[in-house]
Protein backbone atom coordinates (compact mmCIF):
# COMPACT_ATOMS: atom_id res chain seq x y z
CA UNK A 1 0.00 0.00 0.00
CA UNK A 2 1.28 3.45 -0.88
CA UNK A 3 1.22 6.30 1.61
CA UNK A 4 -1.70 8.66 1.04
CA UNK A 5 -1.50 12.42 0.93
CA UNK A 6 -2.85 14.08 4.06
CA UNK A 7 -2.25 10.92 6.13
CA UNK A 8 -1.06 11.45 9.73
CA UNK A 9 2.62 10.68 10.28
CA UNK A 10 3.68 8.95 13.50
CA UNK A 11 7.16 8.42 14.69
CA UNK A 12 7.84 5.63 17.19
CA UNK A 13 6.86 7.87 20.08
CA UNK A 14 4.34 10.41 18.86
CA UNK A 15 2.54 12.04 15.97
CA UNK A 16 4.72 14.57 14.16
CA UNK A 17 2.54 15.93 11.34
CA UNK A 18 1.01 14.84 8.07
CA UNK A 19 2.09 13.81 4.61
CA UNK A 20 2.08 17.08 2.66
CA UNK A 21 3.71 15.80 -0.52
CA UNK A 22 4.83 12.56 -2.16
CA UNK A 23 8.00 12.23 -4.21
CA UNK A 24 8.21 9.61 -6.97
CA UNK A 25 11.30 8.17 -8.59
CA UNK A 26 10.86 8.86 -12.35
CA UNK A 27 12.64 5.66 -13.43
CA UNK A 28 11.31 3.03 -11.04
CA UNK A 29 8.01 4.89 -10.64
CA UNK A 30 7.92 4.05 -6.98
CA UNK A 31 7.40 6.35 -4.05
CA UNK A 32 10.88 7.35 -3.00
CA UNK A 33 10.18 9.92 -0.27
CA UNK A 34 7.39 11.43 1.70
CA UNK A 35 7.40 15.05 2.82
CA UNK A 36 6.25 15.60 6.36
CA UNK A 37 5.00 18.91 7.59
CA UNK A 38 3.01 20.39 10.40
CA UNK A 39 0.24 22.76 9.57
CA UNK A 40 1.05 26.41 10.29
CA UNK A 41 3.81 25.57 12.73
CA UNK A 42 6.47 27.57 10.87
CA UNK A 43 8.56 24.42 10.95
CA UNK A 44 10.22 23.50 7.66
CA UNK A 45 8.96 20.40 5.82
CA UNK A 46 11.24 17.41 6.06
CA UNK A 47 11.93 14.90 3.30
CA UNK A 48 11.83 11.30 4.61
CA UNK A 49 13.04 8.37 2.49
CA UNK A 50 10.59 5.53 1.94
CA UNK A 51 12.96 3.08 3.62
CA UNK A 52 12.18 4.80 6.93
CA UNK A 53 8.48 3.89 6.63
CA UNK A 54 7.54 1.05 8.94
CA UNK A 55 3.86 0.64 8.09
CA UNK A 56 1.14 2.33 6.06
CA UNK A 57 -2.61 2.39 6.62
CA UNK A 58 -5.36 4.36 4.94
CA UNK A 59 -4.85 7.39 7.14
CA UNK A 60 -1.55 6.84 8.96
CA UNK A 61 2.08 6.43 8.06
CA UNK A 62 4.30 4.97 10.79
CA UNK A 63 8.03 5.67 10.76
CA UNK A 64 10.84 3.66 12.27
CA UNK A 65 12.64 6.61 13.72
CA UNK A 66 11.87 8.46 16.96
CA UNK A 67 10.68 12.09 16.71
CA UNK A 68 13.99 13.32 18.05
CA UNK A 69 15.72 12.18 14.87
CA UNK A 70 13.31 14.05 12.65
CA UNK A 71 15.57 17.08 12.33
CA UNK A 72 18.32 14.94 10.83
CA UNK A 73 16.30 14.42 7.71
CA UNK A 74 16.92 17.01 5.00
CA UNK A 75 14.68 20.02 4.62
CA UNK A 76 12.37 19.80 1.65
CA UNK A 77 13.33 22.18 -1.20
CA UNK A 78 10.32 22.74 -3.46
CA UNK A 79 12.30 24.39 -6.25
CA UNK A 80 14.17 21.14 -6.88
CA UNK A 81 10.96 19.42 -8.03
CA UNK A 82 8.18 19.65 -10.64
CA UNK A 83 4.69 18.22 -10.44
CA UNK A 84 3.82 15.09 -12.41
CA UNK A 85 1.63 17.26 -14.69
CA UNK A 86 4.65 19.25 -15.85
CA UNK A 87 6.67 16.29 -17.05
CA UNK A 88 5.89 13.40 -19.37
CA UNK A 89 6.74 10.08 -17.72
CA UNK A 90 5.18 7.11 -19.42
CA UNK A 91 2.50 5.24 -17.48
CA UNK A 92 3.26 7.14 -14.29
CA UNK A 93 -0.37 7.55 -13.27
CA UNK A 94 -0.92 3.80 -13.51
CA UNK A 95 1.58 3.22 -10.67
CA UNK A 96 0.42 5.98 -8.38
CA UNK A 97 -2.36 5.55 -5.84
CA UNK A 98 -1.59 8.30 -3.36
CA UNK A 99 -4.85 10.27 -3.47
CA UNK A 100 -7.14 9.75 -0.51
CA UNK A 101 -10.58 9.05 -1.93
CA UNK A 102 -11.63 9.90 -5.52
CA UNK A 103 -12.80 12.92 -7.51
CA UNK A 104 -15.97 12.02 -9.41
CA UNK A 105 -18.31 13.42 -12.07
CA UNK A 106 -21.89 12.15 -12.30
CA UNK A 107 -22.97 10.20 -15.36
CA UNK A 108 -25.63 12.20 -17.22
CA UNK A 109 -29.10 10.88 -16.53
CA UNK A 110 -29.72 9.90 -20.14
CA UNK A 111 -26.48 7.94 -20.37
CA UNK A 112 -27.43 5.58 -17.57
CA UNK A 113 -29.51 3.45 -19.90
CA UNK A 114 -27.23 0.79 -21.33
CA UNK A 115 -29.78 -0.39 -23.90
CA UNK A 116 -29.98 3.12 -25.33
CA UNK A 117 -26.25 3.37 -25.55
CA UNK A 118 -25.79 0.05 -27.33
CA UNK A 119 -28.66 0.76 -29.71
CA UNK A 120 -27.23 4.05 -30.89
CA UNK A 121 -23.74 2.60 -31.04
CA UNK A 122 -24.88 -0.20 -33.31
CA UNK A 123 -27.13 2.06 -35.35
CA UNK A 124 -24.26 4.48 -35.92
CA UNK A 125 -22.03 1.65 -37.11
CA UNK A 126 -24.77 0.36 -39.41
CA UNK A 127 -25.45 3.73 -41.00
CA UNK A 128 -21.72 4.40 -41.33
CA UNK A 129 -21.22 1.11 -43.15
CA UNK A 130 -24.19 1.84 -45.40
CA UNK A 131 -22.62 5.12 -46.43
CA UNK A 132 -19.38 3.44 -47.42
CA UNK A 133 -20.97 0.43 -49.06
CA UNK A 134 -22.44 2.00 -52.24
CA UNK A 135 -18.97 3.11 -53.26
CA UNK A 136 -17.27 -0.25 -53.06
CA UNK A 137 -18.44 -1.78 -56.32
CA UNK A 138 -18.17 1.34 -58.55
CA UNK A 139 -14.73 2.16 -57.17
CA UNK A 140 -13.44 -1.36 -57.72
CA UNK A 141 -14.67 -1.36 -61.32
CA UNK A 142 -13.25 2.13 -61.76
CA UNK A 143 -9.71 1.24 -60.78
CA UNK A 144 -9.84 -2.11 -62.57
CA UNK A 145 -10.94 -0.72 -65.92
CA UNK A 146 -7.64 -1.01 -67.80
CA UNK A 147 -6.41 -4.11 -65.98
CA UNK A 148 -8.10 -6.77 -68.08
CA UNK A 149 -8.32 -5.07 -71.44
CA UNK A 150 -9.67 -7.30 -74.25
CA UNK A 151 -7.08 -8.71 -76.65
CA UNK A 152 -6.00 -6.97 -79.83
CA UNK A 153 -6.55 -9.56 -82.56
CA UNK A 154 -5.55 -7.45 -85.54
CA UNK A 155 -3.64 -9.09 -88.36
CA UNK A 156 -0.40 -7.22 -89.00
CA UNK A 157 1.62 -7.53 -92.18
CA UNK A 158 5.25 -8.02 -91.27
CA UNK A 159 7.02 -8.88 -94.52
CA UNK A 160 7.37 -11.50 -97.20
CA UNK A 161 8.57 -15.10 -97.18
CA UNK A 162 11.11 -14.27 -99.88
CA UNK A 163 13.37 -13.12 -97.05
CA UNK A 164 13.57 -16.69 -95.84
CA UNK A 165 16.28 -18.40 -97.87
CA UNK A 166 16.69 -21.70 -96.06
CA UNK A 167 14.76 -24.20 -93.96
CA UNK A 168 15.04 -24.23 -90.16
CA UNK A 169 16.79 -20.88 -90.05
CA UNK A 170 15.39 -18.12 -87.86
CA UNK A 171 14.71 -14.84 -89.66
CA UNK A 172 13.77 -11.76 -87.64
CA UNK A 173 10.91 -9.66 -88.93
CA UNK A 174 10.70 -6.19 -87.44
CA UNK A 175 7.46 -4.29 -87.74
CA UNK A 176 5.68 -1.28 -86.32
CA UNK A 177 2.45 -1.62 -84.40
CA UNK A 178 0.13 1.31 -83.82
CA UNK A 179 -1.21 1.43 -80.31
CA UNK A 180 -3.76 3.74 -78.76
CA UNK A 181 -3.67 3.73 -74.99
CA UNK A 182 -6.74 5.23 -73.29
CA UNK A 183 -6.86 8.94 -74.11
CA UNK A 184 -3.30 9.16 -75.45
CA UNK A 185 -2.86 9.94 -79.15
CA UNK A 186 -1.96 7.02 -81.43
CA UNK A 187 1.66 5.97 -81.17
CA UNK A 188 3.85 3.45 -82.96
CA UNK A 189 5.87 0.84 -81.16
CA UNK A 190 8.64 -1.30 -82.63
CA UNK A 191 8.10 -5.01 -82.35
CA UNK A 192 9.63 -8.11 -83.86
CA UNK A 193 8.94 -11.80 -84.38
CA UNK A 194 11.18 -14.65 -85.51
CA UNK A 195 9.88 -16.62 -88.48
CA UNK A 196 11.33 -19.81 -89.81
CA UNK A 197 10.36 -22.18 -92.55
CA UNK A 198 10.25 -25.49 -90.73
CA UNK A 199 11.27 -28.80 -92.19
CA UNK A 200 8.83 -31.66 -91.41
CA UNK A 201 10.67 -33.00 -88.34
CA UNK A 202 10.92 -29.53 -86.85
CA UNK A 203 7.28 -28.84 -87.75
CA UNK A 204 6.25 -32.01 -85.98
CA UNK A 205 8.22 -30.95 -82.91
CA UNK A 206 6.38 -27.62 -82.86
CA UNK A 207 2.84 -28.91 -83.40
CA UNK A 208 3.09 -32.41 -81.94
CA UNK A 209 0.38 -33.66 -84.30
CA UNK A 210 -2.15 -31.07 -83.14
CA UNK A 211 -3.29 -27.90 -84.84
CA UNK A 212 -2.59 -24.89 -82.66
CA UNK A 213 -5.70 -22.97 -81.59
CA UNK A 214 -5.69 -19.36 -80.45
CA UNK A 215 -8.55 -18.03 -78.37
CA UNK A 216 -9.94 -14.64 -77.40
CA UNK A 217 -10.84 -13.58 -73.86
CA UNK A 218 -14.25 -15.26 -74.05
CA UNK A 219 -12.67 -18.60 -74.93
CA UNK A 220 -13.80 -18.64 -78.54
CA UNK A 221 -11.29 -19.70 -81.19
CA UNK A 222 -10.14 -16.81 -83.34
CA UNK A 223 -7.53 -18.64 -85.41
CA UNK A 224 -5.95 -22.02 -85.88
CA UNK A 225 -2.39 -22.52 -87.04
CA UNK A 226 -2.58 -25.61 -89.25
CA UNK A 227 0.26 -28.03 -88.76
CA UNK A 228 0.80 -28.53 -92.48
CA UNK A 229 1.77 -24.90 -93.04
CA UNK A 230 5.56 -24.85 -92.93
CA UNK A 231 5.95 -21.28 -91.66
CA UNK A 232 6.18 -20.78 -87.91
CA UNK A 233 6.41 -17.36 -86.23
CA UNK A 234 7.63 -17.10 -82.64
CA UNK A 235 6.80 -14.13 -80.39
CA UNK A 236 9.89 -11.93 -80.08
CA UNK A 237 9.78 -12.09 -76.27
CA UNK A 238 11.66 -14.82 -74.42
CA UNK A 239 9.19 -16.81 -72.27
CA UNK A 240 11.53 -16.50 -69.28
CA UNK A 241 11.26 -12.78 -68.56
CA UNK A 242 10.38 -11.10 -71.87
CA UNK A 243 13.80 -10.15 -73.27
CA UNK A 244 14.45 -10.08 -77.01
CA UNK A 245 16.40 -13.13 -78.15
CA UNK A 246 18.61 -13.85 -81.19
CA UNK A 247 19.32 -16.55 -83.74
CA UNK A 248 22.96 -17.55 -83.43
CA UNK A 249 25.39 -19.92 -85.00
CA UNK A 250 27.25 -21.72 -82.22
CA UNK A 251 30.34 -23.47 -83.59
CA UNK A 252 30.89 -25.37 -80.35
CA UNK A 253 27.48 -27.00 -80.67
CA UNK A 254 27.81 -27.28 -84.40
CA UNK A 255 24.35 -25.89 -84.92
CA UNK A 256 22.30 -22.73 -84.93
CA UNK A 257 20.01 -21.91 -82.04
CA UNK A 258 17.87 -19.16 -80.52
CA UNK A 259 19.83 -17.53 -77.70
CA UNK A 260 18.47 -15.07 -75.16
CA UNK A 261 21.24 -12.73 -73.94
CA UNK A 262 19.52 -11.82 -70.64
CA UNK A 263 19.71 -15.14 -68.82
CA UNK A 264 21.09 -17.40 -71.54
CA UNK A 265 18.04 -19.47 -72.34
CA UNK A 266 18.74 -21.53 -75.45
CA UNK A 267 16.08 -22.89 -77.84
CA UNK A 268 16.34 -25.00 -80.98
CA UNK A 269 14.53 -24.29 -84.25
CA UNK A 270 11.34 -25.84 -82.95
CA UNK A 271 11.40 -23.58 -79.93
CA UNK A 272 12.21 -26.37 -77.52
CA UNK A 273 14.25 -25.33 -74.48
CA UNK A 274 17.77 -26.76 -74.74
CA UNK A 275 19.24 -24.96 -71.74
CA UNK A 276 18.64 -22.07 -69.39
CA UNK A 277 15.86 -20.91 -67.05
CA UNK A 278 13.04 -20.68 -69.61
CA UNK A 279 9.94 -22.37 -68.15
CA UNK A 280 8.36 -23.26 -71.49
CA UNK A 281 9.28 -23.36 -75.20
CA UNK A 282 9.11 -20.34 -77.51
CA UNK A 283 5.55 -19.10 -78.06
CA UNK A 284 4.24 -19.46 -81.63
CA UNK A 285 1.85 -16.73 -82.75
CA UNK A 286 -1.02 -16.93 -85.23
CA UNK A 287 0.42 -16.74 -88.74
CA UNK A 288 -1.02 -16.75 -92.21
CA UNK A 289 0.83 -16.49 -95.46
CA UNK A 290 -0.89 -15.05 -98.51
CA UNK A 291 -0.51 -16.54 -101.96
CA UNK A 292 2.02 -13.86 -102.86
CA UNK A 293 4.12 -14.73 -99.83
CA UNK A 294 3.14 -11.84 -97.55
CA UNK A 295 3.24 -12.93 -93.94
CA UNK A 296 0.63 -11.71 -91.49
CA UNK A 297 0.64 -12.36 -87.77
CA UNK A 298 -1.48 -11.49 -84.76
CA UNK A 299 0.76 -9.90 -82.15
CA UNK A 300 -0.02 -12.16 -79.22
CA UNK A 301 1.86 -11.76 -75.94
CA UNK A 302 2.01 -14.27 -73.13
CA UNK A 303 2.83 -13.85 -69.47
CA UNK A 304 6.57 -14.30 -68.91
CA UNK A 305 8.02 -16.76 -66.45
CA UNK A 306 5.16 -19.26 -66.24
CA UNK A 307 5.03 -22.89 -67.32
CA UNK A 308 1.49 -22.57 -68.60
CA UNK A 309 0.86 -20.15 -71.44
CA UNK A 310 -1.40 -17.28 -70.36
CA UNK A 311 -2.25 -14.72 -72.98
CA UNK A 312 -2.06 -11.12 -71.80
CA UNK A 313 -2.18 -8.99 -74.99
Amino acid at each position, binding site marked *: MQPKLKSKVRCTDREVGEVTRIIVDPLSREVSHIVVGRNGAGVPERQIPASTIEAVTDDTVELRAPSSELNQFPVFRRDEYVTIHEVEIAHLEDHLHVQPGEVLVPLP*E*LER*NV*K*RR*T*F*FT*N*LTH*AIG*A*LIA*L*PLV*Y*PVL*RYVMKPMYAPF*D*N*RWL*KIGNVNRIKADDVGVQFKFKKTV*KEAFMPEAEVDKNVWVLKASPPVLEEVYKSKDMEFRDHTGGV*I*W*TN*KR*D*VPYVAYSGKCPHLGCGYKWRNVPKLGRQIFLCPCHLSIYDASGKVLDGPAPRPLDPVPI*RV*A*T*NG*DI*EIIDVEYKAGTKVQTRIV
Partner: protein
Amino acid sequence: MTGQASNMSSVKLGLAVAWPAFWTGVPIKVVIALLLLATGLHPWEMPGLAFLLLLSIPIDIWALGLSSRTVFLERLHLQPPALVGLTLWWQATLFSALYLPIAYLIGSQAVAGAQAVASRMFELELLKTMPVPERISIELTMWGGAAAVVLLVLALGWLFGFGRIVGRQVATARPAAEPYQALVRQWDLLRVPDDQPLVLTVLAASGVTLVVLFWAFMPVSTPHPHELYEKPQEKVGPPLKPAEALQKTEKLIAQAESAVQALEAKAKKDVKNKGKNKGTGKEAAPSKADQPKAGKTETTPGNAAAPTR
Protein backbone atom coordinates in the same frame (compact mmCIF):
# COMPACT_ATOMS: atom_id res chain seq x y z
CA MET B 1 -40.72 27.05 -22.21
CA THR B 2 -41.94 24.64 -19.58
CA GLY B 3 -45.50 23.43 -19.61
CA GLN B 4 -47.43 26.33 -21.05
CA ALA B 5 -49.76 24.30 -23.19
CA SER B 6 -52.42 26.91 -23.63
CA ASN B 7 -49.95 29.75 -24.03
CA MET B 8 -48.18 28.31 -27.06
CA SER B 9 -49.43 30.03 -30.21
CA SER B 10 -50.73 27.89 -33.05
CA VAL B 11 -47.92 28.92 -35.36
CA LYS B 12 -45.28 28.03 -32.76
CA LEU B 13 -46.96 24.72 -32.07
CA GLY B 14 -47.24 23.93 -35.76
CA LEU B 15 -43.59 24.76 -36.31
CA ALA B 16 -42.49 22.79 -33.26
CA VAL B 17 -44.00 19.61 -34.72
CA ALA B 18 -43.69 20.16 -38.48
CA TRP B 19 -40.03 21.22 -38.59
CA PRO B 20 -38.54 18.12 -36.90
CA ALA B 21 -41.05 15.84 -38.65
CA PHE B 22 -39.97 17.17 -42.03
CA TRP B 23 -36.27 16.70 -41.35
CA THR B 24 -36.82 13.28 -39.82
CA GLY B 25 -38.27 12.11 -43.12
CA VAL B 26 -35.62 13.71 -45.33
CA PRO B 27 -32.78 11.16 -44.96
CA ILE B 28 -35.10 8.29 -45.84
CA LYS B 29 -36.71 10.12 -48.74
CA VAL B 30 -33.32 11.09 -50.13
CA VAL B 31 -32.43 7.39 -50.30
CA ILE B 32 -35.64 6.67 -52.22
CA ALA B 33 -34.99 9.60 -54.54
CA LEU B 34 -31.46 8.35 -55.22
CA LEU B 35 -32.69 4.91 -56.09
CA LEU B 36 -35.23 6.42 -58.50
CA LEU B 37 -32.50 8.51 -60.11
CA ALA B 38 -30.28 5.45 -60.54
CA THR B 39 -33.03 3.83 -62.59
CA GLY B 40 -33.29 6.96 -64.74
CA LEU B 41 -36.56 8.25 -63.28
CA HIS B 42 -36.87 11.74 -61.85
CA PRO B 43 -38.43 12.05 -58.38
CA TRP B 44 -40.10 15.33 -59.33
CA GLU B 45 -41.90 13.93 -62.39
CA MET B 46 -44.42 11.16 -62.77
CA PRO B 47 -44.11 8.19 -62.34
CA GLY B 48 -41.21 8.69 -59.95
CA LEU B 49 -43.12 11.33 -58.05
CA ALA B 50 -46.05 9.00 -57.48
CA PHE B 51 -43.71 6.35 -56.14
CA LEU B 52 -42.05 8.84 -53.80
CA LEU B 53 -45.35 10.23 -52.51
CA LEU B 54 -46.70 6.77 -51.91
CA LEU B 55 -43.68 5.72 -49.86
CA SER B 56 -43.80 9.04 -48.02
CA ILE B 57 -47.08 8.14 -46.40
CA PRO B 58 -45.78 5.65 -43.82
CA ILE B 59 -42.61 7.71 -43.37
CA ASP B 60 -44.57 10.88 -42.63
CA ILE B 61 -46.93 9.14 -40.25
CA TRP B 62 -44.00 7.74 -38.32
CA ALA B 63 -42.11 11.04 -38.35
CA LEU B 64 -45.13 13.04 -37.24
CA GLY B 65 -45.74 10.56 -34.44
CA LEU B 66 -42.18 10.78 -33.19
CA SER B 67 -41.96 14.58 -33.37
CA SER B 68 -45.36 15.23 -31.85
CA ARG B 69 -44.76 12.82 -28.97
CA THR B 70 -41.49 14.56 -28.22
CA VAL B 71 -43.13 17.98 -28.24
CA PHE B 72 -45.98 16.78 -26.02
CA LEU B 73 -43.64 15.37 -23.42
CA GLU B 74 -40.82 17.89 -23.52
CA ARG B 75 -42.46 21.22 -24.24
CA LEU B 76 -46.06 20.72 -23.10
CA HIS B 77 -45.66 18.22 -20.28
CA LEU B 78 -48.59 16.20 -21.57
CA GLN B 79 -49.02 12.53 -22.33
CA PRO B 80 -49.44 12.19 -26.08
CA PRO B 81 -52.74 10.61 -27.23
CA ALA B 82 -52.62 7.21 -28.90
CA LEU B 83 -52.03 7.08 -32.65
CA VAL B 84 -51.29 10.79 -32.65
CA GLY B 85 -49.06 10.43 -35.73
CA LEU B 86 -51.77 8.91 -37.86
CA THR B 87 -54.37 11.41 -36.70
CA LEU B 88 -52.14 14.37 -37.40
CA TRP B 89 -51.22 12.97 -40.77
CA TRP B 90 -54.68 12.50 -42.19
CA GLN B 91 -55.97 15.76 -40.82
CA ALA B 92 -52.93 17.62 -42.14
CA THR B 93 -53.32 15.96 -45.55
CA LEU B 94 -56.94 17.08 -45.78
CA PHE B 95 -56.02 20.57 -44.70
CA SER B 96 -53.13 20.78 -47.16
CA ALA B 97 -55.30 19.49 -49.99
CA LEU B 98 -57.54 22.51 -49.45
CA TYR B 99 -54.93 25.07 -48.48
CA LEU B 100 -52.07 24.41 -50.88
CA PRO B 101 -53.88 24.99 -54.19
CA ILE B 102 -55.27 28.28 -52.88
CA ALA B 103 -51.89 29.28 -51.54
CA TYR B 104 -50.26 28.40 -54.83
CA LEU B 105 -52.75 30.57 -56.70
CA ILE B 106 -52.29 33.52 -54.40
CA GLY B 107 -48.55 33.10 -54.35
CA SER B 108 -48.04 32.87 -58.07
CA GLN B 109 -50.36 35.81 -58.68
CA ALA B 110 -48.53 37.89 -56.11
CA VAL B 111 -45.12 37.05 -57.56
CA ALA B 112 -46.23 37.77 -61.10
CA GLY B 113 -47.83 41.02 -59.98
CA ALA B 114 -44.72 42.12 -58.13
CA GLN B 115 -42.55 41.31 -61.14
CA ALA B 116 -44.84 43.33 -63.38
CA VAL B 117 -44.80 46.32 -61.06
CA ALA B 118 -41.03 46.21 -60.81
CA SER B 119 -40.49 46.10 -64.55
CA ARG B 120 -43.05 48.88 -65.07
CA MET B 121 -41.08 51.03 -62.68
CA PHE B 122 -38.08 50.80 -64.92
CA GLU B 123 -40.01 52.09 -67.87
CA LEU B 124 -40.21 55.48 -66.17
CA GLU B 125 -38.04 58.12 -67.81
CA LEU B 126 -36.08 58.57 -64.62
CA LEU B 127 -34.88 55.02 -64.45
CA LYS B 128 -34.71 54.07 -68.13
CA THR B 129 -31.07 54.98 -68.42
CA MET B 130 -29.97 52.79 -65.52
CA PRO B 131 -27.41 50.20 -66.67
CA VAL B 132 -28.47 46.58 -66.90
CA PRO B 133 -26.70 44.98 -63.90
CA GLU B 134 -27.93 47.63 -61.46
CA ARG B 135 -31.40 47.38 -62.90
CA ILE B 136 -31.49 43.63 -62.52
CA SER B 137 -30.47 43.78 -58.87
CA ILE B 138 -32.91 46.51 -57.93
CA GLU B 139 -35.80 44.84 -59.76
CA LEU B 140 -34.95 41.54 -58.14
CA THR B 141 -34.80 43.09 -54.69
CA MET B 142 -38.16 44.73 -55.23
CA TRP B 143 -40.18 41.85 -56.49
CA GLY B 144 -38.07 39.31 -54.60
CA GLY B 145 -38.68 41.09 -51.35
CA ALA B 146 -42.40 41.34 -52.00
CA ALA B 147 -42.54 37.71 -53.04
CA ALA B 148 -40.60 36.65 -49.96
CA VAL B 149 -43.07 38.46 -47.71
CA VAL B 150 -46.02 36.84 -49.48
CA LEU B 151 -44.48 33.38 -49.27
CA LEU B 152 -43.68 33.93 -45.60
CA VAL B 153 -47.26 34.89 -44.88
CA LEU B 154 -48.57 31.86 -46.75
CA ALA B 155 -46.16 29.60 -44.89
CA LEU B 156 -47.24 31.06 -41.58
CA GLY B 157 -50.81 30.47 -42.66
CA TRP B 158 -50.12 26.80 -43.21
CA LEU B 159 -48.29 26.55 -39.90
CA PHE B 160 -51.23 28.24 -38.20
CA GLY B 161 -53.65 25.74 -39.66
CA PHE B 162 -51.43 22.80 -38.81
CA GLY B 163 -50.89 24.23 -35.35
CA ARG B 164 -54.65 24.28 -34.83
CA ILE B 165 -54.79 20.62 -35.80
CA VAL B 166 -52.09 19.83 -33.25
CA GLY B 167 -53.91 22.03 -30.73
CA ARG B 168 -56.97 19.79 -30.99
CA GLN B 169 -54.83 16.86 -29.93
CA VAL B 170 -53.33 18.94 -27.15
CA ALA B 171 -56.77 19.72 -25.81
CA THR B 172 -57.58 16.03 -25.41
CA ALA B 173 -54.26 15.08 -23.80
CA ARG B 174 -53.79 14.24 -20.13
CA PRO B 175 -51.18 16.14 -18.16
CA ALA B 176 -48.04 14.22 -17.41
CA ALA B 177 -47.35 14.20 -13.72
CA GLU B 178 -43.77 13.02 -13.83
CA PRO B 179 -40.86 15.35 -13.14
CA TYR B 180 -39.05 16.97 -16.05
CA GLN B 181 -36.16 14.53 -16.06
CA ALA B 182 -38.51 11.59 -16.34
CA LEU B 183 -40.30 13.19 -19.26
CA VAL B 184 -37.00 13.79 -21.03
CA ARG B 185 -36.07 10.17 -20.48
CA GLN B 186 -39.43 9.10 -21.83
CA TRP B 187 -39.17 10.88 -25.15
CA ASP B 188 -35.53 10.00 -25.41
CA LEU B 189 -36.32 6.31 -25.03
CA LEU B 190 -39.08 6.56 -27.62
CA ARG B 191 -36.23 6.38 -30.04
CA VAL B 192 -34.92 3.09 -28.68
CA PRO B 193 -36.82 0.11 -30.06
CA ASP B 194 -37.86 -2.74 -27.83
CA ASP B 195 -36.41 -5.39 -30.07
CA GLN B 196 -33.05 -3.98 -31.04
CA PRO B 197 -31.57 -6.93 -32.93
CA LEU B 198 -34.67 -7.09 -35.08
CA VAL B 199 -34.64 -3.44 -36.01
CA LEU B 200 -30.92 -3.44 -36.69
CA THR B 201 -31.08 -6.60 -38.78
CA VAL B 202 -33.98 -5.28 -40.82
CA LEU B 203 -32.22 -1.98 -41.36
CA ALA B 204 -28.95 -3.64 -42.36
CA ALA B 205 -30.67 -6.11 -44.67
CA SER B 206 -32.81 -3.51 -46.41
CA GLY B 207 -29.78 -1.23 -46.68
CA VAL B 208 -27.69 -3.92 -48.35
CA THR B 209 -30.56 -4.80 -50.68
CA LEU B 210 -31.02 -1.18 -51.72
CA VAL B 211 -27.29 -0.81 -52.32
CA VAL B 212 -27.20 -3.89 -54.54
CA LEU B 213 -30.20 -2.59 -56.48
CA PHE B 214 -28.43 0.73 -56.82
CA TRP B 215 -25.41 -1.03 -58.29
CA ALA B 216 -27.58 -2.97 -60.70
CA PHE B 217 -29.42 0.09 -61.96
CA MET B 218 -26.75 2.72 -62.20
CA PRO B 219 -25.32 3.31 -65.67
CA VAL B 220 -21.69 2.35 -66.26
CA SER B 221 -20.91 5.21 -68.62
CA THR B 222 -22.21 8.76 -68.46
CA PRO B 223 -25.93 9.14 -69.11
CA HIS B 224 -25.17 12.49 -70.82
CA PRO B 225 -22.37 11.83 -73.30
CA HIS B 226 -20.70 14.77 -74.94
CA GLU B 227 -21.93 15.29 -78.50
CA LEU B 228 -18.42 15.57 -79.89
CA TYR B 229 -16.89 12.64 -78.05
CA GLU B 230 -16.10 9.65 -80.23
CA LYS B 231 -15.78 6.35 -78.48
CA PRO B 232 -12.98 4.33 -80.03
CA GLN B 233 -14.67 1.68 -82.19
CA GLU B 234 -14.29 -1.87 -80.95
CA LYS B 235 -11.96 -3.53 -83.41
CA VAL B 236 -14.39 -6.25 -84.36
CA GLY B 237 -13.07 -8.68 -86.90
CA PRO B 238 -14.89 -8.39 -90.23
CA PRO B 239 -17.83 -10.78 -90.45
CA LEU B 240 -17.17 -14.20 -91.93
CA LYS B 241 -19.12 -14.99 -95.07
CA PRO B 242 -17.98 -18.51 -96.11
CA ALA B 243 -19.94 -18.82 -99.37
CA GLU B 244 -18.67 -15.48 -100.66
CA ALA B 245 -15.15 -16.32 -99.59
CA LEU B 246 -15.23 -19.59 -101.48
CA GLN B 247 -16.53 -17.88 -104.61
CA LYS B 248 -13.85 -15.23 -104.41
CA THR B 249 -11.15 -17.82 -103.92
CA GLU B 250 -12.39 -19.78 -106.93
CA LYS B 251 -12.34 -16.62 -109.03
CA LEU B 252 -8.80 -15.87 -107.93
CA ILE B 253 -7.62 -19.35 -108.75
CA ALA B 254 -9.15 -19.07 -112.20
CA GLN B 255 -7.46 -15.70 -112.67
CA ALA B 256 -4.16 -17.08 -111.47
CA GLU B 257 -4.43 -20.02 -113.83
CA SER B 258 -5.04 -17.81 -116.82
CA ALA B 259 -2.18 -15.56 -115.77
CA VAL B 260 0.16 -18.53 -115.49
CA GLN B 261 -0.94 -19.79 -118.91
CA ALA B 262 -0.28 -16.35 -120.37
CA LEU B 263 3.14 -16.32 -118.77
CA GLU B 264 3.99 -19.77 -120.13
CA ALA B 265 2.97 -18.69 -123.59
CA LYS B 266 5.05 -15.56 -123.26
CA ALA B 267 8.03 -17.51 -121.94
CA LYS B 268 7.88 -19.80 -124.98
CA LYS B 269 7.84 -16.76 -127.19
CA ASP B 270 10.76 -15.24 -125.28
CA VAL B 271 12.84 -18.33 -125.69
CA LYS B 272 12.22 -18.10 -129.43
CA ASN B 273 13.09 -14.38 -129.42
CA LYS B 274 16.09 -14.95 -127.22
CA GLY B 275 17.49 -17.14 -129.88
CA LYS B 276 17.11 -14.26 -132.32
CA ASN B 277 18.21 -11.39 -130.03
CA LYS B 278 21.23 -12.95 -128.40
CA GLY B 279 23.16 -9.74 -128.56
CA THR B 280 20.68 -7.50 -126.90
CA GLY B 281 20.76 -9.34 -123.55
CA LYS B 282 17.28 -8.20 -123.01
CA GLU B 283 15.39 -10.55 -120.93
CA ALA B 284 11.79 -9.88 -120.55
CA ALA B 285 11.39 -10.16 -116.84
CA PRO B 286 8.37 -12.26 -115.97
CA SER B 287 5.65 -9.74 -115.48
CA LYS B 288 4.69 -9.24 -111.92
CA ALA B 289 1.13 -9.57 -113.04
CA ASP B 290 0.66 -12.23 -110.39
CA GLN B 291 1.85 -10.17 -107.46
CA PRO B 292 -0.43 -7.14 -107.53
CA LYS B 293 -3.48 -9.32 -108.01
CA ALA B 294 -2.49 -11.57 -105.18
CA GLY B 295 -1.60 -8.47 -103.17
CA LYS B 296 -5.08 -7.11 -103.61
CA THR B 297 -6.67 -10.24 -102.25
CA GLU B 298 -5.22 -9.63 -98.82
CA THR B 299 -7.30 -6.58 -98.18
CA THR B 300 -10.63 -8.01 -99.23
CA PRO B 301 -12.62 -9.23 -96.27
CA GLY B 302 -13.38 -12.59 -97.77
CA ASN B 303 -9.83 -13.74 -97.29
CA ALA B 304 -10.19 -13.82 -93.57
CA ALA B 305 -11.82 -17.14 -94.31
CA ALA B 306 -8.64 -18.32 -96.00
CA PRO B 307 -7.89 -20.80 -93.17
CA THR B 308 -9.27 -23.51 -95.31
CA ARG B 309 -5.95 -24.56 -96.73
